[in-house]
């Protein structure tokens, strides 16, 4: 496999931090904290990481089912 291109890494890190802040600010924390443990933990993971697939696996839901939960929790998909 080839080498890693270093360009752009810092920009991606900055964009990731900005997206994380947006998710933290806009999330409905009251809704998130009211969920059963598995869903609550998965929603918190989504806020921090923004990864729908991984969060859906933690929640034990399909991606589409978790995406619906994400919308109910008012967590924006920032991409």
């Amino acid at each position, binding site marked *: *496999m*080839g*080498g*890693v*291109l270093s*360009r*752009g*890494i810092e*920009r*991606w*890190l900055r*964009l*990731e931090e900005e*997206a994380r802040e*947006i998710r933290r600010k806009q999330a409905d924390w009251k809704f998130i904290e009211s969920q059963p443990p598995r869903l609550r933990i998965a929603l918190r993971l989504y806020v921090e*990481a*923004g*990864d*729908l*697939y*991984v969060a*859906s696996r933690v929640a034990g839901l*399909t*991606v*589409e*089912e978790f*995406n*619906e939960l*994400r*919308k109910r929790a*008012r*967590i*924006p*998909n*920032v*991409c």
Partner: protein
Amino acid sequence: MSAEEFAVADTCFLIDWAYWRRRNVLPGLFRAVFVPEEVLREVKSESTLEWVAENLATGSFALFTETQDVVGFARAVVERSRMLPIRGVDLPEAVCLAIGKMRGYIVLTENRGALMAADALAELSGVRVWRSLDLISQAFRRGILGGDPEAVFMEYEEDTGHMFPPGGVEGRNR
């Protein structure tokens, strides 16, 4: 036929896009959009399944059965992405990136890890990755969509719970 006339959709993209009121813009942008079997398995709602099935029936979408060489390349991409200080990719997105590399299809995703990997990994050089933002912009350029682009972007955000960077396409590289 140019491979650029084909696209492959990952799960995050397809599920997001399916909730947009103008979702039928997608078939007009490509000769066919391939949907990997792994992606199809993640779709559960009747509305989304119906939409996917309608497009499979008309040939606008086509099923992509993942082969061993694609999965093998994808697993290597997963490992390589985890060596970077940025978000890695998981196998479903990596499969789409592998298809993009090996078949020359445009990769449709809403997963930032996939965008980062395509940008940062030498083995994915040349892979074209588009988000809904890019697709909507293309639809305007090709005259498939008309009217005020900002209003359409806002519509998409409203329907999908998505958030675009300020300034649309130009704003994404802030």
